[in-house]
């Protein structure tokens, strides 16, 4: 991106403001594979990647399937004194359900399952039709705003680190083995990180605008 310096400004539509520092830049089409960053604050503004849309859709679909597996299969298995206790992701969400900590149950369900799933679904809704070359779906703009707003609150990867810490804490107390849901969840985290790496927010917004039904 090139900064604008002259006082004779072109049309606002030919310009772009850096979302991080508000520097006025000349809006040019960034070619696929290229990275455009702000000359002042060096924030990456656009980084379109080849086949990004298709890849994001595939990864979001994979993530949804993995999430279903993660919720319904046993997550961790603990054996001590001849007793075995299986715990699913649902049990973990319900851990706070009794007593004063009950409101945390909702938060847990949201952070681990509901918000990540909502993000996958909204991304599929926004990018799906466009990947086929169609016009964006109705309210795709709202859906993408929701997906972006949820990004910090979808905490699947934080949860996985939490599991690792919990395992070490219990390891001395009892024998713990990992269930299929655990591996599904690990795969889910990897898929989510890959997906977010392909995503270039400003590029998606521009594409949405360009392909909008007029």
């Amino acid at each position: 991106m090139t900064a604008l310096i002259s006082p004779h400004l072109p049309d606002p539509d030919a310009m772009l403001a850096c979302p991080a520092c508000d520097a006025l830049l000349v809006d040019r089409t960034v070619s696929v594979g290229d990275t455009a960053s702000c000359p002042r604050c060096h924030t990456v503004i656009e980084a379109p990647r080849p086949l990004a849309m298709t890849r994001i859709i595939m990864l979001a679909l994979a993530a949804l399937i993995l999430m279903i597996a993660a919720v319904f299969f046993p997550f961790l298995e603990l054996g001590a004194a001849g007793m075995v206790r299986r715990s699913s992701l649902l049990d973990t969400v319900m851990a706070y359900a009794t007593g004063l900590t009950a409101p945390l149950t909702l938060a847990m369900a949201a952070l681990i399952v509901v918000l990540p799933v909502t993000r996958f679904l909204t991304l599929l809704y926004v990018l799906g039709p466009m990947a086929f070359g169609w016009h964006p779906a109705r309210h795709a703009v709202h859906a993408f705003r929701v997906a972006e707003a949820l990004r910090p609150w979808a905490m699947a990867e934080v949860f996985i680190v939490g599991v690792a810490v919990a395992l070490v804490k219990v390891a001395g107390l009892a024998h713990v083995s990992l269930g299929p849901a655990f591996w599904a969840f690990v795969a889910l985290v990897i898929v989510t990180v890959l997906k977010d790496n392909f995503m270039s927010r400003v590029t998606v917004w521009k594409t949405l605008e360009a392909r909008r039904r007029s």
Partner: protein
Amino acid sequence: MENLRSAPPILTARDAGLIGCTHCGKVDRPGVARCARCGARLRARDVDGLQKVWAWLIAGIVIYIPANLYPMLSTASLGKTTENTILGGVIELMHHGSYGVAGIVFFASIVIPIAKFIAIIYLGLSVTRKVHMPMHRRHTLFEIVEFIGRWSMIDVFVVAILSSLVRLDFAATITPGIAAVSFALSVAFTMMAALSFDERLIWDARNEDVE
């Protein structure tokens, strides 16, 4: 890349009498309430947002106090119940010799939250006061605060996993304590504080520093 060549003083959208969208980068003329491209609310600068930052931050700090005073989890084992606060849990881990995990928990539950409080206070003050840290450094600081916030939630998840797993009735049972709620709220409130901060304010600060 061409991006990195040293540029003459940069014109911002606000200086040019226009409004830039912080979500999609679209430039609009003043008087437009919502971005035509992405529908986000347009503000030349979100100065009122600074009040929201302070409000969320104070809430986060206040509720962080009971999070440390009350038990995070209680372990009932063979009729004996022990209650652990956040710091108590860290110390116990160290007694067991798992220094790595103790380090992670200590970092995620104590160092990061407190460092975040300080960083947000500093960034908030830097908007209205003269500070010495260069803009680029402050921009990096903000990005770190924004990125790291969610990772403090680790301990809340650990307690949930432990108490769903360790329910061996007579052998040992772990139940979550009330501190988990206040800790989770503290993390959420500080995340809200960081999200309400308009990072463009960092670059407007009156002291144009030398780069």
